[in-house]
Structure formats: C-alpha cells, structure tokens
C-alpha cells in the first residue's frame, strides 16, 4: 500500500503561524476522527458521537471547525507551539514544515518493535513573512483568511476521494489503527513532526521531534 502524501503551503506573518497551523491540522483531524468505539459481546461495536465547535482566529479573518475535544486540542496546540518557537528561533526569514502523519501499527514478533506504516501524510509548508506596517498587516489578515479557506477546500477534496482507509479493526486490533487514549473522540493513529529550514533553504537546525500518540505500550 502506498502512502498518500499531500502538501499544503501557506505564507503567514509571525503571529499568524499558530492559528494557521491549528486551522489546517484541526480541519484534517475533524475528518480523521470518529466517536469512541464500544465493542459488544457479539463482536459488533457502536460508535460514540463527535461534537464540533467553531474557533475564531484572532490574527486572521478566519473561523475553522474542530472536534469538541479539549484533550485533543491541547495536544495539537502543544505541537504547534513547539513548531512556532522553533520557527521563531531560526531567524527572521524562517521557513518550516509541519507534518501530520496517519499510520497503522503492525505488530512484529519479539524482539522486533512494532512497525509504523504511514497511510496518509499531510505536509504543511510555512513561510514566515515580515510586514512593515499596520496596513500591510490588515491586508495580510484578510489574504491569509482567504488562503486558509482555499486550503480547507483542498483538504476536503482530498478526503473526498475516499482513497485508502484502514479497515475497521476488531477489538484486539483497535489500538493499531486508532488513538484510543482520549476519552471523547478517537482519531486515527497520528504523529506530528516538524522541520525548520533557514532562509537559504538548507537544513541548518534540523530539529526532528516526534510526538507519538500511542499509549498502548508493549
């Protein structure tokens, strides 16, 4: 199975980085999260309900929808904050990329550790621009809002191709497909990583951090 890879690019002002990333990541996770599974004795299962909420951005003329899960929101915000800090430390012309990877775990026999097989990777390339005055910032607010709207449409287009999705797992396999650590929603297993490049395009500060959402330790 080939891993599906999608790349989105945004140019934003420094203080817009966080909200732009949250908007894109939450839009993707909205489509890649289900309600909690409840398995029954007969081998069937029922699915919990996913709530949604609107989030207004402060620095961008944009509103996005995220799943109503404060736990998930906290995790995503933490990752985005780290990315933003790394981007800020890299210098004023910093470019970076944050990736959201959905994967499946394939159990291997001891002593080998489980394999993580990605099936969908979203890469968001960020280019931070500096603006000179308030007028430019106001224009940027609106423009970035429009751009994010286009990104949401792009994401929805990709999701709607109904390409490969992992098969619905049995109870014993559910943690190989879904992140069951949250109490209210159940996203597919995912990882968020990021890379920072400096203005010359070379990977000077190659900070590769992995945030692994896998609470089922072996």
């Amino acid at each position, binding site marked *: 199975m080939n891993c599906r890879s999608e790349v989105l690019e945004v140019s934003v002002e420094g203080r817009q980085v966080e909200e732009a990333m949250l908007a894109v990541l939450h*839009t993707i996770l*909205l*489509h890649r999260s*289900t*309600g*909690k599974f*409840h398995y*029954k004795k*007969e081998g*069937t*299962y*029922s*699915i*919990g*309900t*996913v*709530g*949604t*909420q*609107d*989030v*207004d951005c402060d620095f961008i*003329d944009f*509103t*996005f*929808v995220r*799943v*109503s*899960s404060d736990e998930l929101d906290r995790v995503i915000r933490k990752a985005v904050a780290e990315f933003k800090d790394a981007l800020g430390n890299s210098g004023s012309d910093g470019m970076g990329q944050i990736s959201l990877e959905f994967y499946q775990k394939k159990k291997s026999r001891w002593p080998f550790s489980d394999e993580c097989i990605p099936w969908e990777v979203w890469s968001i390339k960020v280019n931070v621009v500096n603006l000179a005055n308030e007028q430019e910032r106001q224009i940027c607010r609106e423009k970035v809002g429009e751009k994010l*709207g286009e990104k*949401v*449409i792009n*994401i*929805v*287009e990709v*999701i*709607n191709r*109904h390409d490969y999705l992992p098969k*619905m797992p049995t109870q014993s396999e559910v943690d190989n497909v879904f992140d069951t650590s949250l*109490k*209210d*929603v159940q996203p597919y297993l995912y990882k968020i990583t990021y890379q920072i490049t400096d203005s010359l395009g070379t990977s000077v500060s190659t900070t590769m951090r992995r945030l692994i959402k896998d609470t089922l330790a072996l």
Partner: protein
Amino acid sequence: MDSDLSSQDRKDLDKFIKFFALKTVQIIVQARLGEKISTCSSSSPTGSDWFNLAIKDIPEVTHESKKALAGQLPGIGRSMCVEISLKTSEGDSMELETWCLEMNEKCDKDIKVSYTVYNRLSLLLKSLLAITRVTPAYKLSRKQGHDYVILYRIYFGDVQLTGLGEGFQSVRVGVVGTPIGTITLSCAYRTNLALMSSRQFERTGPIMGIIIDHFVERPFTNMAHMHPCSYRTPGEDEGGTYAGIEDSQEVCTTSFSTSPPSQVMPSLSGEMHSDVLCMCGTQVTTTSLDLPFAAFTPRANDLEVNDPMVHPPPSPAPSSPLQGSLHSNSSSHSGGQPQDDFVMVDFKPAFSKDDLLPMDLGTFYREFQNPPQLASLSIDVSAQSMAEDLDSLPEKLAIYEKNIDEFDAFVDTLQ
C-alpha cells in the same frame, strides 16, 4: 432478481438519505445564524445522533425541510436546495449562495450500505461543517443584525442559480456513491460581494442603489418563502408542534450496534440563541474622517515652522541680524503683512471667487493661518530684558503677599 440491493438495505439507504438531507439543511442554516456553533462529544452512544455527529435540530428548520421534501427523497432529477440570501433594512435582498444536494445516475453497486455509505455520509457532513465557514456568506452572516439579515429558503426540484449574478463560483463539498446513484453536495456562491462591501464605505450613494445592480429581478412573492436564519424559542412560532417531533421516533441506529436504540431523538429546548434580527438602522456610510477641504489646509510641517508655540523664540539677547529676522517672522500679527523675506504666493483656493466678497476664502486663510502672537510671548526688542524682569520681581511679590487673602479665597472657590 434485484441482486443489487436487498429490501433491508434499500430501506436503510432511504432512511440514510432522508436524514442526511435533514442534517445538511440544519448544518447550513445553523452556520448562517451569525453565531459560533458548539456541540459536545459524547463517548457513550445514545443511538440518537445520526451519522455519529452531534448536530442539533432546530424544529422550525426540520419543519421547513420536511415541507419542502413533501414526503419525497432527493433523487435523480430531484435536487434539494438551500438558498441563502441577504435582506437589508431597506427591504432589498440579494441571493448569496445556493447549496445543492443532488443525485446522479452513477451507481456503486458493490458498496456496503450500512457501513461504507453511512460512514461516508458522516464524512460528508463534516466536510459541510468545514466548508460552510469558508464561503463568503459566512462572514456576512456573522455580522448580520442592524443593517441586514440572512434568510434561507428550501426548495426541491431543479436547481436555480440565476439569482447569484455573473461570475458565481462553485465549490464541491463531496460525493458519496450508493447503489442507487451518487449523492453530490455542492455550493454555488456569489462572488461580487467584495464590490458591495467596498462600496459600503463610499460616501456617495446609499447602499440601496448598489444592491439594485446585483439584484436580478426577483419576484417578491418568493420572499414569502424566505425564513430568517434565527431561532425563536418555541411558542413564538406558528403552531408549536411540528411533524418533526412525531418523527423523532425514527431514531438512527449507530453503525454496527446490535442493541436496539434506547432513546428518542433529544427534544429541543430553547437553549439556542434566540436573536430576533432587527431590521432597522441606517446603512453603513463612511468610516473615513476626511476633513472638508483637507487638501487645502497648510501641511503640518509648514505650520510647525512658523508656529511660535513649537519653536519658542529665543530670549531677547542682543539680536544678530539672523535672530532679528527670525523674530519678525515668528511674531506674526493679525492682518498679516507678509515680510520682505518671503515671496507672497497668491493663494487661490478652489471654489473661491477672487475679490468679489469682502472676506473670501483666501483672505480668511491668510488672516487666520498665523494667529496673532500672544502678548505674553511677544519678544520685541523693546521688551524688558531679563535683568529688568528680575528687578521687578520683588515688587510683584510684595503685591501678591498683600493680596494673599484674595488668592486664598479664589483657591477655595475652586475646591
């Protein structure tokens, strides 16, 4: 033999399509209410949340949807459309967007109804949630209130897009293949909203004139079918019970559950915002703070150069020729005779008539451009020197001491 679809599957599919249509309308109308929407996730399935999504049901909207469907289902050649339009306090209206739920003939015979179709419909509703916040009408709906309101209309049958003006754009929310056809959900939206919003800030012309440009002839009878995107608490509405409440017995069974549904559709209370949108107030005209004839007032830096308050004249020391000329320049006087150092430019402001009136605009500006020097700040060479000032101080102090009672009384009046 109809090997394509078992009767149970067909029944399920019809139910899915019906409730999908109802939820679609709910999402669209709720996204145009003008407020942020928030619902809670619930890990324990209650069996009443269709498509595993928490989407509230506004009874009025359900009622309108069912009225439009009239017992039918969206199908091939029978599209369900939700039209969103804007109506100003002046009474003019403009279509903003039309959401279309259609079905085409392309069938996917192999797809599993109770599993794949259901989950894909759920995904499509999530996409709809995201896309409804992205089209231009969203921002407009968030700002509705005094100047305009947002209305919705549901109709069934052929899609009508002529009211959206020229150059309207289309966005596809998604498609779901089923054994009886492919469901498509899309939105066509007006694009020349930007023109309207920038014109709103022009001083000339009321907005009504501009609306008419965009306004394709609309039979006003249609307005009867428009409904405001607002939720009124039950009791204000006509009737009170809706067919929707009877239908609440028809509960969705969440996927794959073998246990029977335990609860009915949650009854809807007036917990949602009940703004009654008021259609009053004037249009937004201008936010600019242009002063009239701003172009003709002297520029700030010019003013500064001559302004004695900004550049206080130096104290009267033996004056060098340079200082002398500075003094004379800054100590300008009313009835201003221009100095020999300056070249008199004949100031001809626009719209003024030359010398026909005793006080034309030019004279007015010349006279009042440099206000007279304050007496206390005048520094003619004949004024007292610093030394003389100091000498007169003791005398002045003696006078003030004598009148100290007067001063105290004055201070008391201030308190």
